[in-house]
């Protein structure tokens, strides 16, 4: 066997280590993977007149995106420094710089998390964004309905259907109103139930106005007669988003209602907002997954501690190649998502 070790090894194919060839082939598939996302995003954006670009609307934060670009570039630089140090047999220095890289990777994810939180707070999520006035009004009604369901369920946990809860609410109010000599506790209970009942009427009225497409100026109690009229739809003004949003504003400013309807807010349409949000989360999400995978692998190398040696140079080089690729993807995502 000894002569085999000294004989020149016959190696076919590309003159690089197999591991490195494997990494490059993998990166080839990654290029195709991300180009598909980035390319389709560019195509969709070009084909959608009125794409949301105002950062006040999309809640895109250029400062955070720019900081993250810098963080990734710095971490990429630290990887090459680490690899260089490894080749120069400065193993402690190599370990240190790999550690810096890992910390920067975590910082990147932290900043990303801050950005995602902002998106969640403003409900910039795929499928949650109204794109025209009708959808915005429907969203307000839907939000209101969810809140109303929650309030009624909290008040009457024993009933599961909205009609039963409403019936119980009415009977409670009736009982308490008719009762003579109410205690102060019963008084406050009556006030609570009356507020809830009025709020529910506001909700039902708003819902019916939006569903039937009548302006809020048309009184809800006339709806039954209006529906019997011929051409009723053309006799009355249609509901508008401004009216609905104003109504929401008024309700949230009301001191009695405000604590009950926390979370209800006016809705503003964002044309192609859902397509934007899908693209944003798909691309930045897959990129973040790649960062997490990279951090995991850096963790494996860092666990070697003082056992890090020259034999790890190829591993660190391959890991570096992967990390640079992750940086490369971000280099394109930053201008495309944050600036253009």
């Amino acid at each position, binding site marked *: 066997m000894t002569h085999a070790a000294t004989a020149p090894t016959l190696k076919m194919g*590309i*003159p*690089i280590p197999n591991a490195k060839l494997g990494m*490059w082939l993998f990166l*080839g598939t990654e*290029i*195709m993977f991300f*180009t*598909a996302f*980035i*390319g*389709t995003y*560019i*195509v*969709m954006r*070009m*084909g*959608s*007149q*009125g794409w949301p*670009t*105002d950062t*006040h609307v999309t809640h895109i934060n*250029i400062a955070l995106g*720019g900081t993250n670009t*810098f963080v990734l*570039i*710095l971490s*990429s*630089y630290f*990887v*090459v*420094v680490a690899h*260089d*140090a490894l*080749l*120069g*047999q400065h193993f402690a220095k190599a370990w240190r710089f790999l550690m810096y890289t890992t910390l920067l990777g975590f910082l990147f994810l932290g900043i990303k998390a801050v950005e995602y939180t902002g998106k969640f707070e403003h409900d910039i999520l795929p499928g949650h964004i109204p*794109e*025209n*006035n*009708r*959808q915005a009004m429907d969203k307000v009604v839907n939000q209101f309905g969810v809140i109303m369901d929650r309030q009624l369920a909290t008040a009457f946990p024993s009933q599961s259907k909205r009609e039963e809860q409403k019936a119980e609410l009415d009977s409670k109010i009736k009982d308490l109103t008719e009762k003579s000599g109410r205690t102060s506790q019963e008084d406050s209970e009556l006030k609570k139930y009356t507020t809830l009942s009025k709020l529910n009427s506001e909700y039902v009225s708003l819902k019916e106005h939006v569903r039937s497409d009548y302006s809020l100026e048309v009184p809800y109690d006339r709806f039954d007669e209006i529906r019997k009229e011929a051409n009723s739809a053309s006799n009355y003004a249609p509901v508008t988003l401004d009216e609905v949003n104003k109504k929401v504003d008024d309700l949230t400013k009301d001191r009695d209602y405000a604590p009950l309807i926390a979370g209800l807010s006016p809705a503003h*349409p964002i*044309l*192609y907002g859902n397509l934007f949000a899908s693209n944003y989360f798909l691309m930045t999400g897959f990129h973040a997954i790649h960062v997490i995978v990279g951090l995991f692998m850096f963790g494996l190398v860092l666990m070697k501690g003082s056992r890090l040696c020259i034999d790890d140079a190829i591993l660190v080089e391959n890991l*570096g*190649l992967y990390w*640079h*690729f992750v*940086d*490369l993807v971000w*280099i*394109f995502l*930053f*201008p*495309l998502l*944050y*600036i*253009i």
Partner: protein
Amino acid sequence: MSDHGHDEHASHGATYFAVFLALCGLTAMSVAADVVHMTPILLGAVVLAVATAKALCVMMFFMHLKFERAWKYLLLAPTIILALALPLSLRPDIGETYYVPDVPQMRDYPEHQARQAQSGGGHH
């Protein structure tokens, strides 16, 4: 970064640092391009050109492609051609049409535009 005692390895430290500075400078350029008001098409062209320059810096120096042999073309050329297939095939249908797509989202588009013009917002 002293190299004495390890003659077999010439450090690239200085080159790497220069590339790092170049990348930082280019990032600052794309942010500056956003601050300076210019037409959307020009802005797009500038920031994408800057991004391509950055990508080339990373690939050539950090990923050592400048120092690799011809296998890099063998590996990367087919990949890039295949990667472009999907966007290019979508382009005629979605990216470039003579009509405005007839989708419900567009129903309030004129109003939406008027509102944006009125508020003075919606730069780029």
